[in-house]
């Protein structure tokens, strides 16, 4: 009985959180697209988001490509289908692993940064200071960051896909030499726009959700240093969870389109 009451409470809290984030998102659409636009700040944030995650995303993608290829080989060899290796690996990289891994890394790297940054700005009254300086802090801080993550994530995913495919090429080459051209010919023969487009689209939504959740947690940070830590932490946890949930939804939707 006590346990169910506790569960009821946390379920209620979760629903409130979802509702709050929903409202925050609505506010983004209401306030984000009025003049004057903060172009300079948007560009700056795009730079921050892209540049700061580039090396981490690159290294991880390279290793994923490598590992995935090495691990898939024995299974394919068993069925005598080793020559399918580039095709199989590229499809799973582009459709699923590239976007999801990149999004998770960015949820950790960018989400926590945004959560902590806005959180400490809230706690030290910098957000209030902006407001009394005739600036809409929501527009200046939140809108710019959400736009930046939404725009940059697809680019990061394309970058990650490229590096991962290169990693995969190297792994194919460990056993049995395959030329660069032959490998990529096979890859591009298999890949279709219907693999690429949904993957880019969903990374756009991943970026959006990472930005919104990071900003929401930071913007509504509780007072004190503990509040800042909590904001950064929840930003990562909730954003990562949402990436998986969105991915699940995205898979269902693309499936529907395939059936048509």
């Amino acid at each position: 009985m006590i346990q169910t009451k506790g569960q009821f409470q946390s379920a209620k809290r979760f629903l409130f959180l979802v509702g709050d984030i929903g409202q925050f998102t609505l506010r983004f659409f209401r306030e984000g697209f009025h003049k004057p636009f903060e172009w300079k700040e948007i560009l700056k944030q795009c730079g921050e988001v892209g540049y700061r995650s580039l090396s981490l995303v690159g290294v991880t993608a390279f290793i994923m490509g490598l590992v995935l290829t090495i691990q898939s080989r024995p299974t394919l060899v068993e069925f005598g289908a080793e020559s399918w290796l580039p095709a199989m690996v590229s499809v799973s990289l582009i459709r699923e692993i590239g976007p999801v891994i990149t999004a998770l890394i960015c949820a950790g790297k960018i989400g926590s940064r945004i959560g902590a940054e806005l959180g400490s700005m809230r706690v030290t009254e910098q957000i209030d200071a902006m407001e009394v300086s005739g600036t809409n802090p929501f527009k200046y801080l939140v809108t710019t960051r959400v736009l930046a993550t939404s725009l940059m994530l697809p680019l990061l995913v394309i970058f990650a896909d490229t590096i991962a495919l290169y990693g995969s090429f190297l792994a194919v080459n460990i056993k049995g030499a395959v030329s660069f051209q032959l490998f990529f010919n096979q890859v591009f023969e298999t890949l279709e726009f219907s693999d690429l487009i949904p993957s880019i689209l969903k990374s756009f939504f991943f970026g959006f959700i990472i930005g919104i959740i990071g900003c929401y947690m930071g913007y509504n940070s509780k007072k004190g240093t503990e509040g800042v830590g909590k904001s950064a932490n929840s930003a990562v946890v909730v954003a990562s969870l949402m990436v998986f949930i969105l991915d699940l939804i995205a898979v269902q939707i693309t499936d529907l389109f395939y059936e048509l």
Partner: protein
Amino acid sequence: MNYKTKERENVIEIRDLKKSFGDNHVIRGFDLNVKDRESVAVLGQSGSGKSVLIKCVIGLITADEGTIKVLGKAVEQLNQVELDELRTDIGFLFQSNALYDSMTIRENLEFPLRRLRRDKSKAEIDAAVQEALEDVGLFHTLNLMPSELSGGMRKRISIARTLIVQPKIILYDEPTTGLDPITAGEINQLMNKVQEKYKTASIIISHDLDCIKVTAQRIVILKNGINYKEGTFEELKNSEDPWVSAFFNT
């Protein structure tokens, strides 16, 4: 009340202000008038709602009941554009300074100027930044980051940032708290200098008696959410009221 102050008009009029956070009734019917070019100190214990009071004045917190008129405009009835317009005439010094720590000192000072006075040219902005920094004696910090400054310097930069838009009213939230007596004394002098040079009216929130003594012409005590006592420094110091006397004579 002498003839001169009588003639000046009120720049801030607070009537029966009330504000609660849940069951915490912080302000319970507070009244205050501030005349043009007058400095009024609001004195009160920690947690008595001083910061809440002046945040209501600038519209950062919405009051539950009562009216606040600033320069003849009722704050609670303004829309966002009108409120921003009014805020160009009010400087707000935050208790925590609230300097933007990702920006240099120059960018910190330029920020309100670019936002509130969009018609200014680059040269005008540079000149204003220089003047404000020279007013507080810290021109050499122009390209430093806030984290590279001491607490007292940050407070001065913060004052420079409120000055730069040449407000008619300045709201100081505990300008000297947490500073050593000498630095605090310097800040007090700076506040007086600012008052003289820019002819501002001000509300000074504080529980630092030295600060209040040299900067304020009139003192209001905020206790239990109301204006408990009012008077000059001398009047309150000699007050019969045990609470006031305890506050002033320890």
